């Protein structure tokens, strides 16, 4: 099963590589990893998307916690959370399909961020479902290039 982990770490050099080498050394897989500073500049937050059964997830969580620079590990998948990813897509745009592309962008509340004679570049933000739906619609039109940030995620507030 897929899990989204939120990992609070010390904002120090080498921490990213400790986390990454832990995953590779122990054969855990990383689907995506995002990292940036938090409000407190001495800390960074990593969002890691990974896969594993219960026993593997237990190991991943414990092994992360064992790293000295890791302060807190939360498996968001056990809770209610929101996640977002930002994607840039460069699509082949011809006279005939330009309008269709713009319609799709509109439906998904994307943004055109770059235009050329032959392409349109689109920015879209959303969760997994939205992003893959849009990609599936654009694919037949000819995707030239796609760049994804990987997922960031946050617990929902308790109401």
């Amino acid at each position, binding site marked *: 099963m897929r899990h989204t982990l939120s990992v609070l770490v010390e904002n120090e050099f*080498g921490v990213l*590589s400790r986390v990454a080498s832990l995953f590779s050394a122990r054969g855990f897989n990383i689907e995506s990893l995002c990292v940036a500073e938090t409000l407190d500049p001495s800390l960074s937050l990593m969002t890691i998307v990974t896969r594993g059964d219960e*026993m593997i997830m237990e*190991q991943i969580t*414990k092994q992360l916690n064992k*790293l*000295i620079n890791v*302060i807190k590990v939360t498996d968001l998948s056990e809770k209610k959370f929101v996640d977002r990813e930002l994607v840039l897509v460069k699509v082949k745009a011809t006279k005939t399909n330009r309008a269709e592309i713009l319609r799709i962008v509109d439906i998904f509340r994307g943004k055109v961020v770059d235009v050329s004679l032959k392409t349109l570049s689109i920015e879209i933000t959303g969760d997994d479902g939205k992003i893959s739906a849009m990609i599936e619609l654009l694919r037949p039109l000819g995707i030239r290039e796609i760049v994804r940030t990987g997922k960031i995620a946050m617990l929902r507030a308790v109401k």
Partner: protein
Amino acid sequence: MKLTGAQILLEGLKREGVEVVFGYPGGAVLNVYDEIFKENFKHILVRHEQGAVHAADGYARSSGKVGVCLVTSGPGGTNTVTGIATAYMDSVPLVVFSGQVPTPLIGNDAFQEADIVGITRSCTKHNYLVKDVKELPRIIGEAFYIAKSGRPGPVLVDLPKDVMLDSGNVSFPENVSVRGYHPTYEGHSYQIERALQLIYKAKRPIIYAGGGVILSNASKELTDFTKILNFPITMTLMGLGAFPVTEPLALGMLGMHGTFSANMAISESDLVIAIGARFDDRVTGKIEEFAPHARIIHIDIDPTSISKNIKVDIPIVGDCKRVLTVLLKEMEGHEDETERVKGRVAPWLEQIEKWRNKHALAYELEDAIKPQYVVEKIGELTGGNAIIATEVGQNQMWAAQFYKFTKPRTFLTSGGLGTMGYGLPAAIGAQVAHPDATVIDIAGDGSIQMNIQEMATAVQYNLPVNIVILNNSYLGMVRQWQELFFDRRYAYTCMENIAPDFVKLAEAYGALGFRVEKMKEVVPTLKKAFKAKRPAIIDVVVEKFEGVYPMVPAGASLKQMLLV
């Protein structure tokens, strides 16, 4: 107080109570060495940096203190890697200080530059690159604290040359606190309560004790616990010495070369109480068939050890000593239950006794000297009071099987990594920690050549370690696998006629050299060597084709033992 980086380091070592540094100098650590020289700080000059780390490791394992090394940048650092990985696998507290090129040169492929922090990331508990002299006091404090607390392990501190030269107004923090590091020492009381309920219900229990018991100095508690319950106990290679193997309840080691009784008992048990052990593959054999009928209680300070290889019923994260102390305390009010479980377990002990009598550890005396005999005689001659280091291979397993370990911290062996060349430098480190002890390296003819240069260290500091080579003219353990699984095709394992003359070699280093070729010479020669109180090699020519048995083939279940 304005001090240079090098002075701060020395001050830090003193504050941490460090008595001795094992090291080897070079360009990047000249300033530090100058300070060591001026301060007359105790330093043991090894002959290879791997030797420095193993020596610090032997010092640490035998004394319980943190072992400290100092090496130069580049090759000095890379030479430590095997030693650090060895210590990491066996949870030995070390702090390794490595020199580094000056900070402006880092990343430039400077002379003798190696990214030692990157290289050792996966074999240290933690590591540091010191970028500013002001950070040095804090980092030294953290390094020692991290090395010795929780599950111990090696920590590396990389010291760029300019940082060691730089000076700053520094003060040492009184307390160390590391934001993301909080080992759990106290076991969860609810889990301990549940564990006790299982213990009182057991019919066929077995205690399975590992190196964690020794690391947490819990031998006494373990012994009390075992004896009060009158439960049988088996130990891992790393756990030997945690409970006296001479006691009737002790079944010896379990696993690949464990005793018949230990492997049978754990396989048939209905309750396994794992204490400071980690269900290593050499211990469990085929994991699906390990203790198939048993409920498992697992006490360990490292949460990642629990439910890593095997699902446990009752996890107790905590320090072995403290958890056992609580268990003992809880048991105090329940003498009647203790008596009841003892009664229930009696037939189980009888069954175990039958297994023990059916296939005890044994060997046949023949004309050729049997390596097991040599180990037994070492045990008898030293009254079990020696500190035994081993190399890796058959020598290691025979030492584990035939020397009767009765005290913790008397067996130094590379269990996790299986590092040939560990024994001699480890013995040297142990002798530094225990100047009056009899320290013996039970060695193989192959392994001893991996760090033989440390003979010079032993001689220089007059450290009377005895190296007993069980010389079978083979990389014996590998040969044994070739015999069993490769139709006796002995690919590159025969060292016959190509080994050095170990007696002359010892003499060349200024040590004593003895050769033993006949059974009746074994005891007198060992006696003579032990009495001489000088570094010595005793080269014992043993039966070439002797094997280590029982043996569970890799991947087989523990009950599938080859017995001869």
